[in-house]
């Protein structure tokens, strides 16, 4: 079900706010009108040279090209003039296209940059609602279309229009009676175009639908090929594929037929126009003394006059779909960015320890320093991702500095959500979260997040060396510090065994590493950041318990003197927390340390003794 923001399949949807989008896009093309004026002048020159040059032929033919004329020098001279005009046109055409390419490329570069920059400022909820593929297609399909349109369609439209007007004018000047014939054929051409174009559009939609279904099938089967093979389901899969493949072939043949005949049909209509013109022109020449030079030139023009129409209909489609693409790009740029009105910043205090402090602005303009301790409190927090569907209800809890707080509960109970609220990935609906007594909404977002280390459920690495990936945690960390962090996370030993050690390239989100190794790197990355508060969201879920045991020392070092929030599936991981919070359906069901919770014989006890499903 394509939503409103869904990537386009066909190229035929229309932009909604044409004028606004065009203005904004032109802003990207150039900020000053000067280059555009240059382009326009060159365009006019090249069109005029082209048409004027051919028109000069009329006179040349009439004056020199007839049996008995002997003025060879005159002919030569006239032709030199013609060459100059043509050369001028060619130079103007080159300057114009080169200028356009430069403008368009620079413009699209700016467009992509602004889009990416805007994207970085959008809240996570935006990324939740928009699949990656869709956002990617803003940068690829849509930006490509815009680029093509700016580079070619725009100019092509203007030049076609100029060309058409020029041709019609010149044809009228040469012989208006003959033009009536041309007009009739033109009218026929336009009518046929509409007919074929309409059909072509409709079948094109069918083709795209069939293509979507075919490609979806291919993707699913190839991605799941291992399962297909495990179940020897190859024949069935092929049969399913064949149905879609044939359907696509038929749809594509039909659509291709209609788009394929546009060429021959229009081409031959022009031939017909040529024939009729030749015929009537001949008659006019016999009966009314219509000059032969005029006839020859007119015939040339009548062959060309169909082209601009053809061009306009093609380029209009390209332009409209580019504008629709631009509109989608602008929609992303205009999406509401993350709210950040925090004024409190994170600073290093003077003195030996260089401890982290919050710098709180006072009413009188001075700043008060509050030492960062890692005291996090939730006060009656309510939250929902989608309005009306409350995920967290009335959560109140506190973590005093140096404590380890663990969240347990079934999938969907709201464990990850709670941690996402501390760093303001999402905004709470009501209530308050304070950090060292300061409302998190008053803290500048970047500083807030810099103070919180996170190891997330899904580890993501970046293309680059292992060393660079660890350094992602703190950009100014030395190699030594990175290696030290890797040792803390117990990642050092496996990294050393990699082909190039710390210089081994990580590619494709760490596809060349095992899940466990990736997680160790993510832990090292968090360790090098050395933040006062740490959030570990299922950080060790992909590491076997024995290896986990081995990195426990490192993890303990990582957690020492920090406030730590831990989410874990494995209860052995959370046992020694100061406080274990059992969440169920977005509410705190139980709270306490391991022993007291076991003694309560409540939900935690059930979970722990395996009497209740954790799913």
């Amino acid at each position, binding site marked *: 079900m394509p939503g409103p923001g869904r990537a386009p399949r066909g190229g035929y949807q229309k932009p909604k706010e044409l004028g606004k989008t065009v203005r904004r896009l032109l802003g990207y093309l150039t900020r000053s009108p000067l280059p555009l004026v240059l382009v326009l002048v060159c365009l006019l020159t090249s069109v005029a040279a082209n048409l004027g040059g051919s028109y000069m032929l009329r006179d040349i*033919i009439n004056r020199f090209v007839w049996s008995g004329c002997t003025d060879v020098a005159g002919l030569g001279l006239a032709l030199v003039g013609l060459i100059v005009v043509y050369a001028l046109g060619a130079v103007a055409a080159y300057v114009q296209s080169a200028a356009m390419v430069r403008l368009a490329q620079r413009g699209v570069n700016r467009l992509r940059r602004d889009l*990416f920059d805007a994207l970085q400022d959008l809240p996570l909820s935006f990324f939740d609602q928009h699949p990656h593929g869709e956002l990617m297609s803003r940068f690829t399909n849509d930006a490509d279309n815009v680029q093509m349109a700016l580079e070619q369609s725009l100019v092509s439209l203007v030049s076609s229009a100029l060309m058409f007007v020029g041709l019609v004018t010149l044809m009228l000047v040469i012989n208006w009676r003959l033009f009536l014939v041309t007009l009739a054929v033109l009218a026929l051409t336009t009518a046929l175009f509409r007919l074929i174009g309409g059909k072509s559009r409709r079948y094109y939609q069918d083709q795209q639908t069939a293509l979507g279904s075919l490609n979806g099938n291919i993707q699913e089967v190839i991605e799941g090929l291992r399962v297909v*093979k495990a179940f020897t389901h190859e024949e069935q899969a092929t049969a399913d594929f064949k149905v879609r493949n044939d359907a696509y072939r038929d749809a594509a043949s039909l659509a291709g037929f209609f788009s394929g005949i546009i060429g021959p*049909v229009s081409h031959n209509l022009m031939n017909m126009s040529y024939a009729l013109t030749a015929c009537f022109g001949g008659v006019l020449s016999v009966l009314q003394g219509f000059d032969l030079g005029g006839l020859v030139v007119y015939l040339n023009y009548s062959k060309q006059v169909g082209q601009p129409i053809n061009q306009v209909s093609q380029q209009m489609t390209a332009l409209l779909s580019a504008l629709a693409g631009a509109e989608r790009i602008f929609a992303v740029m205009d999406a509401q960015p993350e709210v950040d009105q925090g004024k409190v910043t994170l600073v290093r205090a003077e003195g030996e320890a260089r401890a982290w402090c919050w710098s709180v602005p006072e009413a009188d303009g001075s700043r008060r320093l509050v030492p960062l301790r890692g005291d996090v409190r939730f006060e009656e927090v309510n939250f929902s991702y989608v309005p009306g569907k409350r995920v967290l209800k009335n959560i109140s809890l506190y973590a005093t500095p140096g404590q380890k707080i663990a969240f347990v509960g079934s999938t969907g109970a709201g464990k990850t959500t709670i941690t996402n609220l501390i760093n303001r990935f999402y905004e709470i609906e009501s209530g308050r979260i304070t950090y060292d007594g300061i409302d998190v909404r008053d803290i500048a977002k970047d500083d807030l997040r810099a103070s919180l280390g996170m190891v997330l459920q899904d580890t993501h690495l970046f293309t680059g060396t292992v060393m660079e990936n660890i350094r992602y945690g703190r950009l100014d960390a030395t190699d030594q510090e990175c290696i030290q962090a890797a040792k803390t996370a117990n990642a050092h030993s496996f990294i050393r065994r990699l082909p190039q050690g710390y210089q081994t390239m990580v590619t494709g989100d760490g596809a060349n590493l095992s899940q466990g190794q990736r997680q160790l790197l993510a832990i090292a990355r968090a360790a090098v950041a050395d933040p006062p508060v740490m959030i570990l969201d299922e950080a060790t879920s992909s590491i076997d*318990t024995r290896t986990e045991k081995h990195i426990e020392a490192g993890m303990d070092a990582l957690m020492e003197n920090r406030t730590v929030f831990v989410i874990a599936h494995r209860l052995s991981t959370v046992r020694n927390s100061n406080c274990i919070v059992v969440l169920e359906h977005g509410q705190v069901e139980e709270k306490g340390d391991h022993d007291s919770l076991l003694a309560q014989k409540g939900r935690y006890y059930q979970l722990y003794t395996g009497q209740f499903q954790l799913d």
Partner: protein
Amino acid sequence: MLKMIRRHLKGYGGQAVAGPVFMVLEVVCEMIMPLIMARIVDQAIPQGDTGGIFRMGAAMVALALLSMFCGVMGAKLGINASQGFGANLRLALFEKIQTFSFADIDRFSSASLITRTTNDVNNMTIMLTMGLRIMVRTPMMLLSALIIAVTINARLALVLVVIIPLMTLAIAGIMGVGIRLFGLVQRRLDALNEVLQENLVAIRVVKAFVRRDLEKKKFQRSNDDLTDAFLRVGMRIVALMPIMTVCMNGATVAVLYLGGRMVMGGQFDLGSLQAFISYIAQILMSVMMVAMSLLQLSRAQASARRIQEVFDATSDIQDGPAGDRLPRPQGRVEFRDVSFRYAAGGEGDDVLSHIDLDIPAGRFVAIIGGTGVGKSSLVNLIPRFYDVTDGAVLLDGVDVRDYPVEELRRRVGMVLQTNVLFTGTIRENLLWGDPDATEEDLVRAAKDAQAYGFIMSTPNGFETHLDQGGVNLSGGQKQRLCIARAMLKKPAVLILDDSTSAVDSATEAAIRESFHRNLKDTTVIIIAQRISSVRYADEIVILEDDHVAGRGTHEELLASNPIYQEIYQSQQEGVEE
């Protein structure tokens, strides 16, 4: 590439031939028209023969209509042939991919196989559509225009001897550079997409570490690189059209001068001159079109090569010879001195070395060990997802390489680590296990896999539609469906590769219980991390590094095996205090 085209045009050969024939007819009709026009100008007009003018005009209109008909037919047959070819090629490619071994999939990567089946095949189809039209029509046009031009005035045609090489040189020069730079553009585009994709996938990491500015810098670097490449191509390509125009107009002027002098001398007629000029234009246009289509061709060439690579891959997993001499399926699995590495022959360490293991039929065996010690690799050898590098794996006394692959996999059921379900209803997904399963079979399998409860709690039960492979299910639910699917297959050997990791202990125990009850004769091999998942197994195998580091029951291992003790300790601490 031509061989590929010929092979996959099967069934559309007639259209592929008839299409161009019609196109040739179209060209011929079109080529005659300026000749008739010349006669109007040179004969009918000077003689004032209006009847003649009308007759010739009618002939030209008729020719145009005929040409149109031929053009439409040519388009129809051409598109049918090329789309038919595309469908054939896609099917052949798809079928080939179905024969791939896991090693082949690793080597090509799913993403690249998908692009080859979609984009590359499309490029080939487009190429053929264009090719049939331009590669046939244009050279025909070039040839016939050339012949007519020479016939009209051979001396004047000498202009072409100068202009065609000049033009070809210019085109070749620009395009040569262009093609090379297009490669650069493509690489830079890939680089940009990579930065983008990583950023999107890891947006939480980016935000958590506040690396917005670093990411923006990274992106802008790729963005500028891309623009730079585009500009380098663009600035060269835009020279093409003006140069062509200059060549064309230059030729016209030259012909006018030389031809005009002939007309003055009475050796040539104005009408013929006019016709000659239009042929010259045709010729030069055709030269340009040929060059353009060569550019297209070079792109299709790259696609053809990528497709050919897939066809050339000889799957290392071939059917064995023992098709008719197979033992009754019982489920005994033996590993005899098995060594395995992923890139056979290449570098890389052995993942498994000299493994000896005998699993009698009907046993419940658990394999446990650290991350990356080769547990999955070991079980993947049984259904021949990979082949051993050394030694042999035997199923019921026969080397698995001697089984027909399909028969082998029918006997060995496997629940993979990554749970893949397919678009369709829950019922359709379960029927993968056994297309002939009855309603009772389905319900029993679902109950055995502890999936029945949640299936029935969905709005449409077994008919509930799974979108995109089950995004609407939790991890544990997907795992249970996958187990049910495998159980329906009723294999002799059932392998579960860490397939209950997202299922809680109690549910897992229930699944184990139903295995015990209903799969008494089935050999069950499970890989697991949790002691609770393995402790009731008939035998537990401990893998450490690349070898077996211990075997026995839970009690035996707990008493004697230090590794097992350590694993046990790490999970049990505090539970039994």
